[in-house]
Protein backbone atom coordinates (compact mmCIF):
# COMPACT_ATOMS: atom_id res chain seq x y z
CA UNK A 1 0.00 0.00 0.00
CA UNK A 2 1.50 3.36 -1.02
CA UNK A 3 -0.71 6.39 -0.70
CA UNK A 4 -0.06 8.97 -3.40
CA UNK A 5 2.22 11.90 -2.59
CA UNK A 6 1.24 13.80 -5.72
CA UNK A 7 -0.73 16.91 -4.59
CA UNK A 8 -2.69 16.86 -7.84
CA UNK A 9 -3.97 13.35 -7.08
CA UNK A 10 -5.08 14.62 -3.68
CA UNK A 11 -6.91 17.51 -5.34
CA UNK A 12 -8.59 15.04 -7.71
CA UNK A 13 -9.50 12.76 -4.78
CA UNK A 14 -10.89 15.71 -2.81
CA UNK A 15 -13.04 16.78 -5.77
CA UNK A 16 -14.21 13.17 -6.26
CA UNK A 17 -15.24 12.83 -2.63
CA UNK A 18 -16.89 16.29 -2.68
CA UNK A 19 -19.10 15.22 -5.56
CA UNK A 20 -19.86 11.89 -3.86
CA UNK A 21 -20.88 13.70 -0.66
CA UNK A 22 -24.12 14.57 -2.46
CA UNK A 23 -25.23 11.00 -1.83
CA UNK A 24 -25.55 11.72 1.86
CA UNK A 25 -26.97 15.21 1.57
CA UNK A 26 -26.73 18.25 -0.71
CA UNK A 27 -23.91 20.37 0.67
CA UNK A 28 -21.58 23.25 -0.12
CA UNK A 29 -18.71 21.03 -1.30
CA UNK A 30 -20.90 19.39 -3.93
CA UNK A 31 -22.32 22.75 -5.04
CA UNK A 32 -18.85 24.26 -5.39
CA UNK A 33 -17.60 21.24 -7.35
CA UNK A 34 -20.62 21.44 -9.65
CA UNK A 35 -20.11 25.15 -10.29
CA UNK A 36 -16.40 24.70 -10.96
CA UNK A 37 -17.32 22.07 -13.54
CA UNK A 38 -19.85 24.34 -15.26
CA UNK A 39 -17.54 27.36 -15.27
CA UNK A 40 -14.55 25.46 -16.62
CA UNK A 41 -16.67 23.68 -19.29
CA UNK A 42 -17.81 27.07 -20.58
CA UNK A 43 -14.23 28.32 -20.76
CA UNK A 44 -13.20 25.07 -22.45
CA UNK A 45 -15.60 25.75 -25.29
CA UNK A 46 -14.05 29.19 -25.85
CA UNK A 47 -10.54 27.71 -25.89
CA UNK A 48 -11.63 25.02 -28.33
CA UNK A 49 -13.33 27.59 -30.52
CA UNK A 50 -10.08 29.52 -30.87
CA UNK A 51 -7.55 26.70 -31.22
CA UNK A 52 -9.64 24.32 -33.36
CA UNK A 53 -11.90 26.62 -35.33
CA UNK A 54 -11.07 30.30 -35.60
CA UNK A 55 -7.27 30.02 -35.75
CA UNK A 56 -6.83 27.05 -38.13
CA UNK A 57 -9.88 27.61 -40.35
CA UNK A 58 -10.24 31.38 -40.49
CA UNK A 59 -6.94 33.01 -39.59
CA UNK A 60 -4.50 30.41 -40.94
CA UNK A 61 -6.87 29.77 -43.83
CA UNK A 62 -6.84 33.47 -44.76
CA UNK A 63 -3.05 33.73 -44.42
CA UNK A 64 -2.15 30.53 -46.28
CA UNK A 65 -4.76 30.53 -49.06
CA UNK A 66 -4.68 32.70 -52.13
CA UNK A 67 -7.17 34.14 -54.57
CA UNK A 68 -10.80 33.07 -54.42
CA UNK A 69 -10.31 30.45 -51.69
CA UNK A 70 -8.89 33.21 -49.45
CA UNK A 71 -11.49 35.90 -50.04
CA UNK A 72 -14.47 33.56 -49.83
CA UNK A 73 -13.63 33.11 -46.14
CA UNK A 74 -15.08 36.57 -45.60
CA UNK A 75 -18.57 35.06 -45.84
CA UNK A 76 -18.24 32.56 -42.94
CA UNK A 77 -16.27 35.20 -41.00
CA UNK A 78 -19.18 37.60 -41.52
CA UNK A 79 -21.72 34.95 -40.48
CA UNK A 80 -19.66 34.20 -37.34
CA UNK A 81 -19.63 37.91 -36.52
CA UNK A 82 -23.39 38.02 -36.97
CA UNK A 83 -23.67 35.08 -34.54
CA UNK A 84 -21.68 37.05 -31.95
CA UNK A 85 -24.10 40.00 -32.28
CA UNK A 86 -26.39 37.94 -30.05
CA UNK A 87 -24.42 39.38 -27.14
CA UNK A 88 -25.19 42.97 -28.21
CA UNK A 89 -28.81 43.63 -27.20
CA UNK A 90 -29.76 46.36 -29.73
CA UNK A 91 -28.64 44.26 -32.74
CA UNK A 92 -29.17 40.77 -31.32
CA UNK A 93 -31.85 40.12 -33.99
CA UNK A 94 -29.20 39.94 -36.72
CA UNK A 95 -27.72 36.80 -35.19
CA UNK A 96 -30.81 35.02 -36.54
CA UNK A 97 -29.28 35.16 -40.03
CA UNK A 98 -26.30 33.08 -38.92
CA UNK A 99 -28.49 30.79 -36.84
CA UNK A 100 -30.78 30.35 -39.84
CA UNK A 101 -27.79 29.19 -41.87
CA UNK A 102 -26.81 26.57 -39.28
CA UNK A 103 -30.43 25.47 -38.81
CA UNK A 104 -31.02 25.21 -42.57
CA UNK A 105 -27.84 23.18 -43.01
CA UNK A 106 -28.78 21.00 -40.06
CA UNK A 107 -32.27 20.37 -41.42
CA UNK A 108 -31.00 19.56 -44.93
CA UNK A 109 -28.25 17.28 -43.65
CA UNK A 110 -30.71 15.70 -41.24
CA UNK A 111 -33.16 14.77 -44.00
CA UNK A 112 -30.51 13.40 -46.35
CA UNK A 113 -28.73 11.51 -43.59
CA UNK A 114 -31.89 9.93 -42.22
CA UNK A 115 -33.25 8.99 -45.65
CA UNK A 116 -30.10 7.62 -47.20
CA UNK A 117 -28.34 6.49 -44.07
CA UNK A 118 -31.14 5.08 -41.96
CA UNK A 119 -34.60 4.64 -43.44
CA UNK A 120 -33.70 2.96 -46.72
CA UNK A 121 -31.01 0.59 -45.36
CA UNK A 122 -33.08 -0.35 -42.33
CA UNK A 123 -36.22 -1.06 -44.37
CA UNK A 124 -34.05 -3.06 -46.78
CA UNK A 125 -32.65 -5.05 -43.86
CA UNK A 126 -36.17 -5.86 -42.65
CA UNK A 127 -37.11 -7.46 -45.98
CA UNK A 128 -36.05 -10.97 -45.01
CA UNK A 129 -37.01 -14.44 -46.24
CA UNK A 130 -39.68 -16.10 -44.07
CA UNK A 131 -38.16 -19.51 -44.77
CA UNK A 132 -34.46 -20.06 -44.18
CA UNK A 133 -32.96 -23.48 -44.77
CA UNK A 134 -30.58 -24.72 -42.06
CA UNK A 135 -28.39 -27.81 -41.68
CA UNK A 136 -31.10 -29.51 -39.64
CA UNK A 137 -34.88 -29.21 -39.19
CA UNK A 138 -34.42 -27.57 -35.79
CA UNK A 139 -31.98 -25.03 -37.24
CA UNK A 140 -34.38 -24.32 -40.14
CA UNK A 141 -37.22 -23.67 -37.69
CA UNK A 142 -34.93 -21.52 -35.50
CA UNK A 143 -33.61 -19.37 -38.37
CA UNK A 144 -37.02 -18.98 -40.02
CA UNK A 145 -38.66 -18.10 -36.71
CA UNK A 146 -35.98 -15.49 -36.04
CA UNK A 147 -36.69 -13.78 -39.35
CA UNK A 148 -40.45 -13.91 -38.77
CA UNK A 149 -40.00 -12.40 -35.31
CA UNK A 150 -37.72 -9.69 -36.72
CA UNK A 151 -40.28 -8.63 -39.31
CA UNK A 152 -43.19 -8.96 -36.90
CA UNK A 153 -41.37 -7.04 -34.17
CA UNK A 154 -40.37 -4.16 -36.45
CA UNK A 155 -43.80 -3.77 -38.05
CA UNK A 156 -45.78 -4.13 -34.83
CA UNK A 157 -43.54 -1.63 -33.03
CA UNK A 158 -44.13 0.88 -35.85
CA UNK A 159 -47.90 0.25 -35.64
CA UNK A 160 -47.83 0.80 -31.86
CA UNK A 161 -46.53 4.34 -32.40
CA UNK A 162 -48.98 5.11 -35.22
CA UNK A 163 -51.48 7.47 -33.59
CA UNK A 164 -53.26 8.75 -36.70
CA UNK A 165 -55.72 5.88 -36.42
CA UNK A 166 -57.52 4.71 -33.29
CA UNK A 167 -56.14 1.46 -31.92
CA UNK A 168 -59.17 -0.79 -32.37
CA UNK A 169 -59.71 -4.15 -34.03
CA UNK A 170 -56.68 -5.55 -35.92
CA UNK A 171 -54.64 -2.38 -35.24
CA UNK A 172 -55.13 -2.94 -31.50
CA UNK A 173 -54.02 -6.56 -31.73
CA UNK A 174 -50.91 -5.70 -33.74
CA UNK A 175 -49.99 -2.85 -31.41
CA UNK A 176 -50.36 -5.22 -28.43
CA UNK A 177 -47.83 -7.51 -30.09
CA UNK A 178 -45.72 -4.42 -30.61
CA UNK A 179 -45.79 -3.45 -26.94
CA UNK A 180 -44.61 -6.95 -26.07
CA UNK A 181 -41.53 -6.51 -28.24
CA UNK A 182 -41.05 -2.98 -26.89
CA UNK A 183 -41.12 -4.23 -23.29
CA UNK A 184 -38.40 -6.75 -24.10
CA UNK A 185 -36.39 -3.97 -25.75
CA UNK A 186 -36.80 -1.66 -22.78
CA UNK A 187 -35.86 -4.43 -20.39
CA UNK A 188 -32.69 -5.10 -22.36
CA UNK A 189 -31.96 -1.36 -22.50
CA UNK A 190 -32.42 -1.13 -18.75
CA UNK A 191 -29.98 -3.99 -18.26
CA UNK A 192 -27.40 -2.28 -20.42
CA UNK A 193 -28.03 1.09 -18.75
CA UNK A 194 -27.31 -0.47 -15.35
CA UNK A 195 -24.09 -1.87 -16.79
CA UNK A 196 -23.10 1.57 -18.06
CA UNK A 197 -23.80 3.39 -14.82
CA UNK A 198 -22.01 0.83 -12.69
CA UNK A 199 -19.01 1.06 -15.02
CA UNK A 200 -18.76 4.77 -14.28
CA UNK A 201 -18.75 4.08 -10.57
CA UNK A 202 -16.13 1.35 -10.99
CA UNK A 203 -13.91 3.90 -12.74
CA UNK A 204 -14.08 6.37 -9.87
CA UNK A 205 -13.69 3.80 -7.12
CA UNK A 206 -10.67 2.37 -8.98
CA UNK A 207 -9.14 5.86 -9.08
CA UNK A 208 -9.65 6.28 -5.33
CA UNK A 209 -8.29 2.84 -4.45
CA UNK A 210 -5.46 2.66 -6.99
CA UNK A 211 -4.28 6.17 -7.86
CA UNK A 212 -4.97 7.83 -4.50
CA UNK A 213 -4.75 5.23 -1.73
CA UNK A 214 -2.53 2.76 -3.60
CA UNK A 215 -4.49 -0.20 -2.19
CA UNK A 216 -4.81 -1.95 -5.55
Amino acid at each position, binding site marked *: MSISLNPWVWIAAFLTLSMMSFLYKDNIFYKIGEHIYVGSSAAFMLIYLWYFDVKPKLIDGFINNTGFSRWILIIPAFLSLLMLMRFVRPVAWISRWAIAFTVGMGAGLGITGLLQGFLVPQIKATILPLYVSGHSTLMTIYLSLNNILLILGTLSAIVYFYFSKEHTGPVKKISQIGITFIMVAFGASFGYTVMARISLL*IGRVYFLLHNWLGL*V
Partner: protein
Amino acid sequence: MREFLEKAGNIDRRIIYLIIFLAVATTILVKARFKSSPLPEVQRSYKIINDLPSGSVVMFSIDYDASSMPELDPMLRAMLRHCFKKNLKVIMLGHWPLGLPLGQLALDDIAREYHKKYGTDYVFLGYRPGLQAVMLNLGKEIRSVFATDYKGTPLDSLPLMRNVHNYNDIAILVGLEAGSVGDAWVQFANARFNQKIILGSTAVITPDLYPYLQAGQIVGLIGGLRGASDYETLVEHPAMASLGMSSQTVVHVLIILLILLGNIGYFATRRKK
Protein backbone atom coordinates in the same frame (compact mmCIF):
# COMPACT_ATOMS: atom_id res chain seq x y z
CA MET B 1 -42.77 -12.13 8.86
CA ARG B 2 -44.98 -9.73 6.95
CA GLU B 3 -43.62 -6.75 8.89
CA PHE B 4 -40.08 -7.85 8.09
CA LEU B 5 -40.97 -8.12 4.40
CA GLU B 6 -42.59 -4.68 4.44
CA LYS B 7 -39.46 -3.22 6.05
CA ALA B 8 -37.33 -5.05 3.49
CA GLY B 9 -39.24 -3.22 0.78
CA ASN B 10 -38.50 0.13 2.41
CA ILE B 11 -34.75 0.33 3.02
CA ASP B 12 -33.27 3.82 3.33
CA ARG B 13 -31.64 4.90 0.06
CA ARG B 14 -28.36 5.79 1.76
CA ILE B 15 -27.98 2.22 2.94
CA ILE B 16 -28.47 1.06 -0.64
CA TYR B 17 -25.81 3.55 -1.78
CA LEU B 18 -23.41 2.20 0.85
CA ILE B 19 -24.07 -1.41 -0.14
CA ILE B 20 -23.40 -0.62 -3.81
CA PHE B 21 -20.20 1.28 -2.97
CA LEU B 22 -18.92 -1.50 -0.71
CA ALA B 23 -19.73 -4.14 -3.34
CA VAL B 24 -17.69 -2.30 -5.98
CA ALA B 25 -14.81 -1.46 -3.64
CA THR B 26 -14.54 -4.98 -2.23
CA THR B 27 -14.44 -6.71 -5.61
CA ILE B 28 -11.79 -4.29 -6.84
CA LEU B 29 -9.71 -4.77 -3.68
CA VAL B 30 -9.78 -8.58 -3.81
CA LYS B 31 -9.10 -8.43 -7.58
CA ALA B 32 -11.72 -11.06 -8.25
CA ARG B 33 -11.79 -12.30 -11.82
CA PHE B 34 -14.50 -14.28 -13.57
CA LYS B 35 -13.88 -15.82 -16.95
CA SER B 36 -16.10 -15.32 -19.95
CA SER B 37 -15.77 -15.83 -23.67
CA PRO B 38 -15.84 -12.76 -25.92
CA LEU B 39 -19.13 -11.84 -27.54
CA PRO B 40 -19.52 -12.70 -31.26
CA GLU B 41 -19.74 -9.05 -32.35
CA VAL B 42 -16.53 -8.19 -30.46
CA GLN B 43 -14.76 -11.20 -31.96
CA ARG B 44 -15.86 -10.01 -35.38
CA SER B 45 -14.45 -6.52 -34.73
CA TYR B 46 -11.18 -8.02 -33.53
CA LYS B 47 -10.91 -10.26 -36.60
CA ILE B 48 -11.55 -7.39 -39.00
CA ILE B 49 -8.71 -5.33 -37.53
CA ASN B 50 -6.50 -8.40 -37.19
CA ASP B 51 -6.90 -9.25 -40.87
CA LEU B 52 -5.84 -5.79 -42.06
CA PRO B 53 -2.50 -5.79 -43.89
CA SER B 54 0.40 -4.06 -42.16
CA GLY B 55 0.48 -0.34 -42.94
CA SER B 56 -3.30 0.00 -43.31
CA VAL B 57 -4.77 3.18 -41.91
CA VAL B 58 -7.28 3.05 -39.08
CA MET B 59 -9.13 6.23 -38.14
CA PHE B 60 -10.34 6.64 -34.57
CA SER B 61 -13.08 9.11 -33.70
CA ILE B 62 -13.23 10.14 -30.05
CA ASP B 63 -16.88 10.90 -29.46
CA TYR B 64 -17.06 10.64 -25.70
CA ASP B 65 -15.89 12.55 -22.65
CA ALA B 66 -14.96 11.92 -19.02
CA SER B 67 -18.52 10.90 -18.19
CA SER B 68 -18.07 7.74 -20.31
CA MET B 69 -14.34 7.34 -19.81
CA PRO B 70 -14.39 4.17 -17.66
CA GLU B 71 -16.08 2.22 -20.47
CA LEU B 72 -14.54 3.69 -23.59
CA ASP B 73 -11.01 4.53 -22.48
CA PRO B 74 -10.09 0.85 -21.82
CA MET B 75 -11.72 -0.01 -25.16
CA LEU B 76 -9.66 2.63 -26.95
CA ARG B 77 -6.42 1.52 -25.30
CA ALA B 78 -7.02 -2.15 -26.12
CA MET B 79 -7.77 -1.29 -29.77
CA LEU B 80 -4.74 0.99 -30.03
CA ARG B 81 -2.56 -1.78 -28.64
CA HIS B 82 -3.99 -4.10 -31.28
CA CYS B 83 -3.37 -1.59 -34.08
CA PHE B 84 0.20 -0.85 -33.04
CA LYS B 85 0.97 -4.54 -32.53
CA LYS B 86 -0.18 -5.15 -36.10
CA ASN B 87 1.80 -2.14 -37.41
CA LEU B 88 -1.32 -0.36 -38.51
CA LYS B 89 -1.28 3.41 -38.90
CA VAL B 90 -3.56 5.43 -36.66
CA ILE B 91 -5.29 8.75 -37.35
CA MET B 92 -7.30 10.22 -34.51
CA LEU B 93 -9.89 12.97 -34.48
CA GLY B 94 -13.03 13.67 -32.47
CA HIS B 95 -16.39 15.38 -32.24
CA TRP B 96 -16.69 15.83 -28.49
CA PRO B 97 -14.34 18.65 -27.54
CA LEU B 98 -14.49 17.92 -23.81
CA GLY B 99 -13.35 14.35 -24.33
CA LEU B 100 -10.81 14.68 -27.12
CA PRO B 101 -7.84 15.14 -24.73
CA LEU B 102 -8.65 11.71 -23.27
CA GLY B 103 -8.13 10.17 -26.68
CA GLN B 104 -4.95 12.12 -27.14
CA LEU B 105 -3.55 11.04 -23.77
CA ALA B 106 -4.36 7.38 -24.52
CA LEU B 107 -2.81 7.64 -27.99
CA ASP B 108 0.40 9.17 -26.64
CA ASP B 109 0.63 6.56 -23.84
CA ILE B 110 0.12 3.52 -26.06
CA ALA B 111 2.29 4.88 -28.87
CA ARG B 112 5.13 5.36 -26.39
CA GLU B 113 4.63 1.76 -25.17
CA TYR B 114 5.11 0.45 -28.72
CA HIS B 115 7.82 2.97 -29.65
CA LYS B 116 5.74 4.49 -32.40
CA LYS B 117 6.71 7.77 -34.03
CA TYR B 118 4.35 10.72 -34.37
CA GLY B 119 3.77 11.69 -37.97
CA THR B 120 4.91 8.32 -39.31
CA ASP B 121 2.87 5.82 -37.30
CA TYR B 122 0.13 7.99 -35.84
CA VAL B 123 -1.34 11.44 -36.26
CA PHE B 124 -3.69 13.41 -34.07
CA LEU B 125 -5.84 15.77 -36.12
CA GLY B 126 -7.93 17.34 -33.37
CA TYR B 127 -11.45 18.68 -33.55
CA ARG B 128 -13.60 20.66 -35.94
CA PRO B 129 -17.20 21.72 -35.21
CA GLY B 130 -19.91 20.91 -37.72
CA LEU B 131 -20.32 17.13 -37.26
CA GLN B 132 -22.10 16.01 -40.46
CA ALA B 133 -20.34 18.73 -42.48
CA VAL B 134 -16.98 17.40 -41.25
CA MET B 135 -17.92 13.82 -42.12
CA LEU B 136 -19.05 14.76 -45.62
CA ASN B 137 -16.01 16.89 -46.41
CA LEU B 138 -13.63 14.22 -45.06
CA GLY B 139 -15.03 12.03 -47.80
CA LYS B 140 -13.83 14.46 -50.45
CA GLU B 141 -10.49 15.58 -48.98
CA ILE B 142 -9.25 15.44 -45.40
CA ARG B 143 -7.19 18.58 -45.92
CA SER B 144 -10.34 20.61 -46.63
CA VAL B 145 -11.29 20.02 -42.99
CA PHE B 146 -7.89 19.55 -41.36
CA ALA B 147 -5.23 21.47 -43.26
CA THR B 148 -2.94 20.89 -40.29
CA ASP B 149 -2.77 18.55 -37.31
CA TYR B 150 -3.66 19.77 -33.81
CA LYS B 151 -0.26 21.43 -33.41
CA GLY B 152 -0.52 23.35 -36.67
CA THR B 153 1.84 21.11 -38.68
CA PRO B 154 0.70 20.93 -42.33
CA LEU B 155 -0.59 17.45 -43.11
CA ASP B 156 1.54 17.08 -46.23
CA SER B 157 4.68 17.31 -44.09
CA LEU B 158 3.60 14.25 -42.09
CA PRO B 159 4.73 11.02 -43.80
CA LEU B 160 1.61 9.10 -42.72
CA MET B 161 -0.74 11.64 -44.28
CA ARG B 162 0.99 11.96 -47.64
CA ASN B 163 -1.10 9.19 -49.23
CA VAL B 164 -4.21 9.66 -47.14
CA HIS B 165 -6.77 11.97 -48.72
CA ASN B 166 -10.23 10.64 -47.94
CA TYR B 167 -12.17 7.56 -46.83
CA ASN B 168 -10.84 5.56 -49.79
CA ASP B 169 -7.45 5.56 -48.05
CA ILE B 170 -8.85 4.55 -44.67
CA ALA B 171 -9.31 0.82 -44.09
CA ILE B 172 -11.51 1.06 -41.00
CA LEU B 173 -13.15 3.85 -39.08
CA VAL B 174 -13.51 3.13 -35.38
CA GLY B 175 -16.03 5.37 -33.66
CA LEU B 176 -15.99 5.43 -29.85
CA GLU B 177 -19.45 6.68 -29.05
CA ALA B 178 -21.30 8.02 -26.06
CA GLY B 179 -24.07 9.79 -27.96
CA SER B 180 -25.53 10.16 -31.43
CA VAL B 181 -22.32 10.82 -33.37
CA GLY B 182 -22.14 7.11 -34.24
CA ASP B 183 -25.45 7.43 -36.09
CA ALA B 184 -23.99 10.36 -38.04
CA TRP B 185 -20.91 8.32 -38.99
CA VAL B 186 -23.16 5.55 -40.31
CA GLN B 187 -25.54 7.93 -42.10
CA PHE B 188 -22.80 9.91 -43.82
CA ALA B 189 -19.48 8.07 -43.93
CA ASN B 190 -20.97 4.64 -44.55
CA ALA B 191 -24.11 5.52 -46.53
CA ARG B 192 -22.39 7.95 -48.92
CA PHE B 193 -18.84 6.70 -49.07
CA ASN B 194 -19.18 3.00 -48.07
CA GLN B 195 -16.67 3.51 -45.29
CA LYS B 196 -16.32 0.38 -43.14
CA ILE B 197 -17.17 1.26 -39.55
CA ILE B 198 -16.68 -0.44 -36.19
CA LEU B 199 -18.55 1.22 -33.34
CA GLY B 200 -17.42 1.01 -29.75
CA SER B 201 -20.13 2.39 -27.54
CA THR B 202 -21.21 2.95 -23.98
CA ALA B 203 -23.64 0.32 -22.75
CA VAL B 204 -26.45 2.90 -22.70
CA ILE B 205 -26.53 3.27 -26.48
CA THR B 206 -25.34 -0.23 -27.43
CA PRO B 207 -28.88 -1.69 -27.78
CA ASP B 208 -29.72 1.11 -30.24
CA LEU B 209 -26.81 0.14 -32.50
CA TYR B 210 -27.84 -3.48 -33.10
CA PRO B 211 -30.09 -2.50 -36.05
CA TYR B 212 -27.01 -1.10 -37.80
CA LEU B 213 -25.11 -4.34 -37.15
CA GLN B 214 -27.91 -6.50 -38.52
CA ALA B 215 -28.27 -4.29 -41.59
CA GLY B 216 -24.56 -4.49 -42.30
CA GLN B 217 -24.08 -0.73 -41.95
CA ILE B 218 -21.42 -1.38 -39.32
CA VAL B 219 -19.10 -4.35 -39.43
CA GLY B 220 -18.49 -4.66 -35.69
CA LEU B 221 -19.92 -3.53 -32.37
CA ILE B 222 -18.11 -3.36 -29.05
CA GLY B 223 -20.57 -2.53 -26.30
CA GLY B 224 -19.84 -1.22 -22.83
CA LEU B 225 -17.37 -2.44 -20.27
CA ARG B 226 -18.11 -6.04 -21.29
CA GLY B 227 -17.03 -5.25 -24.85
CA ALA B 228 -13.90 -3.49 -23.60
CA SER B 229 -13.08 -6.45 -21.35
CA ASP B 230 -13.63 -8.90 -24.23
CA TYR B 231 -11.31 -6.88 -26.46
CA GLU B 232 -8.66 -6.81 -23.73
CA THR B 233 -8.95 -10.61 -23.54
CA LEU B 234 -8.57 -10.93 -27.30
CA VAL B 235 -5.45 -8.72 -27.41
CA GLU B 236 -4.15 -10.67 -24.39
CA HIS B 237 -3.67 -7.56 -22.29
CA PRO B 238 -6.22 -7.62 -19.45
CA ALA B 239 -6.43 -4.22 -17.81
CA MET B 240 -9.01 -1.98 -16.17
CA ALA B 241 -12.03 -3.31 -18.03
CA SER B 242 -11.30 -6.93 -17.10
CA LEU B 243 -10.79 -5.91 -13.46
CA GLY B 244 -14.05 -3.97 -13.49
CA MET B 245 -16.19 -6.81 -14.87
CA SER B 246 -16.12 -8.75 -11.60
CA SER B 247 -17.54 -5.70 -9.81
CA GLN B 248 -20.09 -5.53 -12.58
CA THR B 249 -21.21 -9.12 -11.89
CA VAL B 250 -21.52 -8.58 -8.15
CA VAL B 251 -23.48 -5.32 -8.50
CA HIS B 252 -25.78 -6.74 -11.16
CA VAL B 253 -26.67 -9.64 -8.87
CA LEU B 254 -27.11 -7.17 -6.01
CA ILE B 255 -29.46 -4.96 -8.02
CA ILE B 256 -31.54 -7.94 -9.12
CA LEU B 257 -31.80 -9.08 -5.50
CA LEU B 258 -32.80 -5.53 -4.47
CA ILE B 259 -35.50 -5.48 -7.17
CA LEU B 260 -36.67 -8.87 -5.92
CA LEU B 261 -36.72 -7.60 -2.34
CA GLY B 262 -38.65 -4.52 -3.41
CA ASN B 263 -41.22 -6.65 -5.18
CA ILE B 264 -41.58 -9.02 -2.23
CA GLY B 265 -42.15 -6.04 0.06
CA TYR B 266 -44.64 -4.60 -2.43
CA PHE B 267 -46.66 -7.80 -2.77
CA ALA B 268 -46.60 -8.36 1.02
CA THR B 269 -47.96 -4.82 1.54
CA ARG B 270 -50.52 -5.25 -1.21
CA ARG B 271 -51.76 -8.46 0.38
CA LYS B 272 -52.15 -6.72 3.72
CA LYS B 273 -54.30 -4.02 2.09
